[in-house]
């Protein structure tokens, strides 16, 4: 006998949306497990606005966006536990967790939704040489200290990397009276969303250094400065371009990594490029009844897409519990074509597609000013769309009508990005 029909690991935007959707689809026995002291995940420290444009058609702050889902969760009487760390998930869906109230518990679920989110890449992982003083931290850690704890992390900062949190923190530090002396990207375009570049850097006259990186951290006790250099098109430092910038703080916004340690314990197969599980259109992994959604699956830049994806997972998990989850169809595989980094989902069972459209989420491998997104089935084009400015920092989506995917068993779907000449 199972203790719960569905156990959701993680109470951030992905876990909340998935749990709510499962409940709305008729599953009463749902439990959400959250490691932090409150629900909402990283949204709680994102006090800037700009969330919810797609889902709510208005600009909310992170905590406001989270509050909407937390309220709905409460209204639907969905059970949750905070301060609770999941220690293990097995492939037969046993979930071991611990917290101060319940102690150590092992519960049996009929389905598990993985929604653990992601973590930030660190100085150690990218190997920035130099000394190891105080004052070097990830942009997200700084965001938490400033927005949740109420403490400042420095007076003169340099930000390495142009991920969205880095951009947001450039503005936040400035508003708190700190001087952001430089922010940089190794590539010839910023990694984060264009709207964040405009609203967080341009509006505050923060200098953006494209094709630059940091090659040395100086200072014994506290950061005293960094060496910034220009990099060539192969991202190698250009000798002689070194510039010493005096600062007391270095924030890093150099990538996010899905947190899949639990997924791997459960035997979930991973994909190298997205660094997340391999899933089908319902966001089910290779392990029967284990689903994944949100940043644990692939890093999103906009929370609305997390919500939509997690609703898909929640709905599918509910269908799985109700025995309405068909396994009759043949799987179509999905593979990246030229200039595409990864695509989610990795396979489709057309029998299970309940909407009339299938949405593919993907990222390009490079920057295109003008291009065409092309979807092919077994080499034959079934959809194409013109786009301006496609770059790895912004996730692309493309929807294909389900009936356009003629029922070719075991066919292969590819998506590619093709440059469009100016005169076309």
């Amino acid at each position, binding site marked *: 006998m199972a203790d719960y029909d569905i156990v959701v690991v993680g109470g951030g935007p992905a876990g909340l949306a998935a749990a709510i959707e499962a409940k709305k689809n008729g599953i009463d026995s749902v439990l959400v497990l959250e490691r932090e002291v409150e629900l909402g995940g990283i949204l709680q420290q994102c006090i800037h606005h700009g969330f919810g444009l797609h889902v709510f058609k208005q600009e909310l702050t992170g905590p406001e966006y989270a509050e909407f889902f937390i309220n709905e969760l409460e209204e639907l009487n969905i059970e949750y536990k905070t301060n609770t760390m999941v220690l293990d998930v097995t492939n037969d869906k046993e979930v071991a967790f*611990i917290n101060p109230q319940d102690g150590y518990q092992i519960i049996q679920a009929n389905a598990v939704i993985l929604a653990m989110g992601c973590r930030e890449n660190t100085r*150690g992982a990218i190997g920035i040489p130099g000394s190891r003083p105080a004052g070097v931290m990830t942009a997200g850690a700084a965001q*938490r200290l400033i927005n949740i704890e109420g403490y400042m992390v420095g007076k003169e900062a340099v930000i390495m990397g142009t991920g969205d949190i880095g951009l947001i923190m450039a503005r936040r530090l400035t508003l708190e009276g700190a001087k952001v002396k430089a922010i940089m990207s190794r590539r010839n375009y910023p990694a984060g969303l264009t709207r964040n570049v405009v609203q967080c850097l341009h509006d505050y006259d923060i200098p953006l250094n494209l094709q630059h990186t940091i090659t040395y951290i100086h200072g014994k006790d506290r950061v005293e400065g960094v060496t910034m250099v220009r990099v060539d098109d192969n991202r190698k430092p250009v000798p002689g371009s070194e510039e010493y910038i005096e600062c007391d703080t270095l924030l890093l916004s150099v990538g996010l990594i899905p947190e899949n340690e639990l997924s791997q314990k459960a035997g979930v197969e991973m994909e190298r490029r997205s660094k997340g599980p391999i899933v089908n259109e319902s966001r089910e992994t290779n392990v029967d009844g284990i689903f994944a959604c949100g940043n644990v699956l692939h890093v999103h830049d906009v929370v609305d897409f997390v919500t939509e994806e997690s609703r898909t997972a929640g709905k599918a998990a509910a269908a799985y519990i109700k025995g309405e989850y068909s396994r009759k169809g043949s799987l179509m595989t999905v593979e990246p074509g030229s200039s595409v980094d990864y695509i989610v989902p990795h396979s489709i069972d057309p029998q299970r597609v309940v909407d009339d459209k299938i949405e593919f989420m993907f990222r390009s491998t490079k920057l295109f000013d003008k291009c065409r997104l092309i979807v092919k089935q077994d080499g034959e084009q079934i959809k194409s769309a013109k786009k301006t400015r496609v770059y790895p920092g912004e996730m692309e989506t493309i929807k294909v009508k389900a009936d356009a995917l003629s029922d070719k068993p075991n066919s292969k779907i590819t998506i590619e990005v093709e440059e469009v000449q100016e005169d076309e």
Partner: protein
Amino acid sequence: MYDVLIIGAGVTGASVARELSRYNLKIGIIEKENDVANATTKANSAIIHAGYDPKPGSWKAKLNVEGTAMFDKLCEELDVPFKKNGSLVVAFSEEEMKTLEELYENGLQNGVQNMHILNAEQTKELEPNLNEEINGSLYAKDAGIICPFILTVALTENAMENGADLMLNQEVVDIQKENSNFKIKTTDQEFESKYVINCAGVFAEEIYSMVTETDFEIIPRKGQYFVLDKEAGDLVNTVVFQCPTKMGKGVLISPTVHGNLLVGPDSQDIEDKQDIDTSKDRLDFVREAAKKTCAEIPFHLSINNFAGVRATPDTGDFIIGESDKVKGFINVAGIESPGLSAAPAIGKCIREIVEELHGGLKINDNFNPKRKKMVRFEELTPSERAEIVAQNPDYGRIVCRCELVTEAEIVDAIQRKAGANSIDALKRRVRTGMGRCQGGFCSPRVMEILSRELNIDMCEVVKDSPNSRILTGMTKYSREEC
């Protein structure tokens, strides 16, 4: 007034203090850093060597072999993570196979047991992930891996439990001998002691020069490392060395006692004895050199780099003994590799010297060789976890999610003698922030706990040294609230 004042709380000083605390002596340890184990001891290969390397008849040979044999009991008494996983020296040519024979012979002369020369096949069986081009290896079963920070913290804590004093942030600026006693001046205090034991690591020469003209030189020699994620921890089972050359023992690949993978070091003579900066060219060298042993090292799983400085003596051997010019002043200098392995034997050796100087030593009847066990939540079985959290709910609060460190463990590490007083001190004791997120998630929580337990303001919490504050003040909103 101390009987014995030990300068330096690295693994050498801590071993000497712990050994002497078995006797009725007033012992003081002074350390210039904000924590024990904060220089050479915190940044090395963390290996307990079998003892086939040093020249027969040297201090290094004698104390390495003696010391290594002491670790089982010592680590049991002090609850220190230690694993005898053995070591391999691999040969890439017939010529290097001859070097292995020489090492084997050398080991026999030094009294090393349980050594075997393995052929290519046997080596592959033991270490299937190494490169194909290996001719054979020297396998030494008695070598092992240890956590040098926890060892040094444990030795100091136990010495303190048995009566020794630890004084941190005390940099010695002057030593005077007056009558038969020493007056030791630090930046803000003065101590008096009958005997001084110089365990000052790379600064042993400077300390000795405060009492007389030195007859040795300590050359700081830097080495850099990669630490890889636990996902890579089982690439090798043993400590895998390359054949030693004139340049040293070469680059090694080793699991750590906590399950990570360690790759390094290089060797570079430097000017500044406190220069522990990492550099790209040196790390690139380590990476390339290690590939000779194993081409498949997953460097993309690297979670950190670090550098340490060896205290290399110009004499080629440890410098151990009472100064022939200054009575009562004992040098324990030039403790480079295999210093960690030799540390327990060095302690014993110094005790014999003190015993002779002092005209015999009286046993400390209250001496307790055991340190209170530390709970390591990560290592507990599910039923043990259930039991302990039922007793103390703070074991149910996971603070560091990568290394599974609970609030109760953190509080314990702060409250003990030689307790943690900084983020890095906790990292060294209970591994908060040591994992793949490198403290990205847990450091705000760790800071809160330090602030609460040490009864200091959040802004006073430091990373390591007293000047390494993390926070620079409150935000505008919080200031208004205050």
